[in-house]
């Protein structure tokens, strides 16, 4: 068979046996969605790539080029050279000033700007490679562990009695040997017919409707078709049509949008960023968090130095429900569980002694 599944009393997940990717989620209450989940990355805008002096290096062949200019950097440089001045202006005009000064705006802590305004994110799993997949099927918990790359893993988990699907991702240290900053997203392409409309929470409260390339209170001129369609997601983002609603709950604030291949039925959440240049908005250093490497002396960094990029772990919870139910009932319940987990405390075994009334 080209597929394998894990299931519990509420939901069945179907995976492609050859790619190891999730392809379908079906609940016993009859809601069924094609869901293709994967990790992709945008390359962060770096004005240094625009006017870098290549000397006698030939971008087309890479001959005579300094080794730090990776093929990706050179290809981008070649693309920039091909633009007419007007195209260069349109692509880079800064939304705030509407003039060429935006051309040097880098991506960074304050700004999300992909290297090309309409960039299609690249597949982290580098199309050729296929993840190592480990499947555990239990009566209380079933999970599929996907080892995409040495720095990107994910565990997709379902629990008995619940139709929710947890995606626990572990990302880092994001590689930057190719001289390019990367902005990693987790993208869920579904068959929901949402026609470019999606909903994000507003500071964890009521949901706002979002439409691609549109603002409700002014006529938007689109300079950045990708980042201009990103919104803050503090608790949940969802797409829906008359048959189903796919919600994704986040365990922290993330950038999110609905772009995908067809702009319909897709949800993407930015989970990690590692950039190589500052965005000139006051921080004065790139968003390139690295781990302090010992020697830790008594908890203090004594002679520490920067090590590899940080690693982070988080969870997205998918709620698949019929839109006919009272508004967002499952999504709200999921958010409650996500933000108020049951804490646990550990003690040695204790027995209560009624005679003395003590443990």
């Amino acid at each position, binding site marked *: 068979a080209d597929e394998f599944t894990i299931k519990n009393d509420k939901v069945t997940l179907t995976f492609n*046996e*050859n*790619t*190891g990717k999730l392809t379908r989620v079906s609940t016993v209450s009859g809601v069924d969605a094609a869901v293709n989940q994967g990790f992709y990355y945008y390359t962060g805008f770096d004005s240094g790539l625009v006017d870098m002096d290549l000397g006698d290096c030939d971008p087309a062949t890479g001959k005579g080029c300094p080794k730090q200019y990776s093929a990706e950097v050179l290809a981008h440089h070649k693309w920039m050279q091909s633009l007419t001045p007007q195209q260069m202006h349109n692509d880079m005009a800064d939304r705030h000033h509407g003039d060429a000064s935006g051309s040097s705006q880098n991506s960074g*802590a*304050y700004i999300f700007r992909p290297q090309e305004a309409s960039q299609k994110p690249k597949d982290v799993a580098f199309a050729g490679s*296929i*993840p*190592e*997949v*480990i*499947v*555990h*099927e239990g*009566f*209380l*918990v079933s*999970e599929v*562990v996907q080892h995409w790359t040495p*720095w*990107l*893993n994910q*565990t997709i988990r379902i*629990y*008995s*009695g619940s139709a929710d699907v947890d995606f626990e991702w*572990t*990302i*880092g*240290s994001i590689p930057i040997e190719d001289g390019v900053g990367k902005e990693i997203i987790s993208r869920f392409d579904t068959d929901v017919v949402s026609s470019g409309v999606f909903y994000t929470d507003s500071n964890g409260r009521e949901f706002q409707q979002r439409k691609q390339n549109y603002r409700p209170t002014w006529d938007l001129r689109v300079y950045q078709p990708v980042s201009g369609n990103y919104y803050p997601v503090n608790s949940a983002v969802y797409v829906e049509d008359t048959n189903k609603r796919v919600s994704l709950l986040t365990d922290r604030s993330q950038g999110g949008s609905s772009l995908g291949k067809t702009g319909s039925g897709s949800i993407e959440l930015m989970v990690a960023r590692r950039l190589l240049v500052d965005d000139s*908005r*006051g*921080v004065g*250093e790139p*968003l390139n*968090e690295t*781990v*302090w490497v*010992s020697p*830790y002396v008594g*908890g203090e960094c004594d002679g520490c130095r920067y090590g590899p990029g*940080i*690693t982070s*772990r988080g969870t997205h919870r998918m709620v698949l429900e019929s839109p006919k139910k009272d508004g967002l009932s499952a999504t709200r319940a999921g958010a*409650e*569980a996500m933000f*108020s*987990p*049951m*804490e*646990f*405390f*550990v*003690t*040695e*075994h*204790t027995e*209560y002694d009624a005679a003395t009334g*003590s*443990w």
Partner: protein
Amino acid sequence: GSDGPLRALEEASSLAQHHDAVSGTSKQHVAEDYAMRLARGHALASPMVTEAVQILTGLGPEVDVFECPLANVSVCAPTTALADKGFDVFVYNPLAQSRTSMVQVPVSHATYKVLDAATGDEVPAEVVRNQMPDMNGALPHGASAPQLWTLFFQAQHVGPLGFRKYTIVKSTTQETPRTMTTRKLKTVGGGVRRRM
């Protein structure tokens, strides 16, 4: 009061209202400073949390209570130290309505039984192998080694703002299959080999 155990946490939390702390728009050492103040505030408040748990559960001051703030990366020193003797787990529900939810406890053995302390009944539980113990090679400094197993069990009907106590005991025999089938799909090239 101004020098109470919560003071440091209150100050760190109020400082972290700045957008730099919320969204990371700061230099790395500033971000780490926010994290250090929150961690120090948490540590200074911890004895008060312990006292609260002892009082609310009726345990009294003679029973040590431990938290596992790094449970999400499978680090929980107390369950390592108590691995062979077994231990108790008090689950706390912070919401204002009764709740049933899965609890995940990092453990270092594959065979445990979970008993509901109130009824003595065995609670459905499952131990699953931790497939990513090393967090891509980036475990927090100074943390104890990550556990290789995670104990899942369902905490049923935990009352609003309430606790429920579970007793975790090592089970010598496999009364019921703790882990059903774990198969590794080694997807090589286009083809797939499935090994049981």
